[in-house]
């Protein structure tokens, strides 16, 4: 369960947000470019410091400005897939997926098993030994998702994960994400600007505009007035 209250002064506006996501729930963050969606993910992951606020994940305090608590990025156990997937180009796909597990000093056999399982989930088994730098955008995206899931995170965050994917890949990836999220019973935040994604994946939707949560509700209830949303 994710509970976060964030406040950060950005260049043009002030980010002021409360977020809650339940285990197994996919929360879609939507909004125009520059509304602060990616910033929220960066703050939650620990890559960016808020001015004030608190972040609690499964009861564990990751950040608490009042008490001066700030858990470092590498200890937050949050799976974060960046917009550009950021697969490590100099190592193979299977080494990419295994990266987090190696960093957590898991056993070799365990790693191999988990890597195989995840690669199967996002359908990249056939690319296991390919250097990740040579993959297409869509393939990289899938590798990144498998890699993020490999560390068995308490929270999964995806920033525009479906932009580079064609319809077929998108559907299979969405399927994989849904499965994993419900199996692991972790909350999942998906940032997207496509309404279709919200309909296809989201359990709940938040509309962000200029750093503030303007509206929250079911995908089917997305208001078509007031805020411009591209299809």
């Amino acid at each position, binding site marked *: 369960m994710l509970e976060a209250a964030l406040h950060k002064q950005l260049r043009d506006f002030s980010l002021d947000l409360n977020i809650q996501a339940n285990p197994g729930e996919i929360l879609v963050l939507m909004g125009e470019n520059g509304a602060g969606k990616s910033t929220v993910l960066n703050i939650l992951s620990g890559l960016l410091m808020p001015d004030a606020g608190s972040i609690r994940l499964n009861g564990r305090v990751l950040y608490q400005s009042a008490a001066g608590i700030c858990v470092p990025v*590498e200890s937050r156990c949050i799976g974060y897939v960046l917009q550009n997937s950021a697969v490590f180009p*100099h190592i193979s796909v299977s080494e990419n997926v295994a*990266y987090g597990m190696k*960093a957590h000093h898991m056993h070799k056999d365990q790693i191999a098993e988990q890597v195989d399982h995840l690669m199967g989930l996002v359908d990249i088994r056939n690319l296991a030994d390919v250097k990740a*730098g040579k993959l297409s955008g869509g393939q990289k995206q899938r590798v990144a998702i498998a890699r993020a899931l490999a560390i068995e995170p308490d929270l999964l965050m995806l920033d525009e994960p479906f932009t580079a994917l064609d319809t077929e890949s998108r559907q299979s990836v969405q399927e994989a994400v849904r499965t994993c999220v419900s199996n692991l019973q972790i909350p999942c935040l998906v940032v997207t600007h496509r309404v279709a994604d919200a309909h296809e994946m989201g359990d709940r939707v938040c509309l962000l505009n200029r750093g503030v949560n303007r509206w929250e509700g079911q995908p089917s209830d997305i208001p078509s007035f007031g805020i411009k949303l591209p299809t």
Partner: protein
Amino acid sequence: MTVSFLGPDRYRRTLTMIGAAVLVASVTLYLALPVAALFFRTTPELFISSLCDPAVTSALWLSLTTSVISLGIVILVGTPFAYVHCRNRYPGKMIVDTLIDLPLVLPPAVAGMALLVLYGRVGLVGKYLNMFGITLAFTTVAVIMAQIFVASPFYLRQAKSLFEQLDPSYEQTAQTLGASPFRVFLTITLPLTASGLVSGAVMTFGRALGEFGATIMFAGNLPGVTQTMPLAVYVGLQGNFNVGLTVSILLVIISFTIMIAVRFLASREVRHA
């Protein structure tokens, strides 16, 4: 093909080509001929026989060992330094940035003088070292210190530029996956910047090998101890001409090898999106 085979267009075209050819040839010759002249000035027999001259062998050995050690120190200390410098904001960062470039514009003799008045026997720091019996000036250590001083900017600038240009999302992602900053540096940053760092290292080696002004000022000129190849060339040209010539040719050969190595590495550099 139009019928204006003999028209003004054709003449202009030919003239331009000739002009370009002359330009390329003259630049090439200007750079290549002096170096070629070195080779023409001696005979292969004379060259081979002077390779046994102790003046040549001691200079060669000294130059190579000191340059390798200097390079090693620059890499071991400079790489983490460049990384820390790039990834953090700290007071005085801009001054440090400028200081890194300083040895590039400082005349080497001035650098040598500066090292002497600081680390020499009666120098600012040197006089305290002297109390503990530590001498730096006129030793092989001084040669290494001089080389590091003048050559480190080549590596540091390269490392800085590489680390700055590296897409931060790689390191950030690695962190979110649970890697400590140290692990991120070793497994992500270094492999992705490796070939650029190597070419920086090669240039640094070349500069250290060719260092003269600071060396003769701070380390002096003693065969076997501080007489590096450039010093041997300078002394040789005025005394034992053959030694000077032989060492010059050796330096040219090493320089060419360095240049080819850098070209080869630059062409192999992987472009990361």
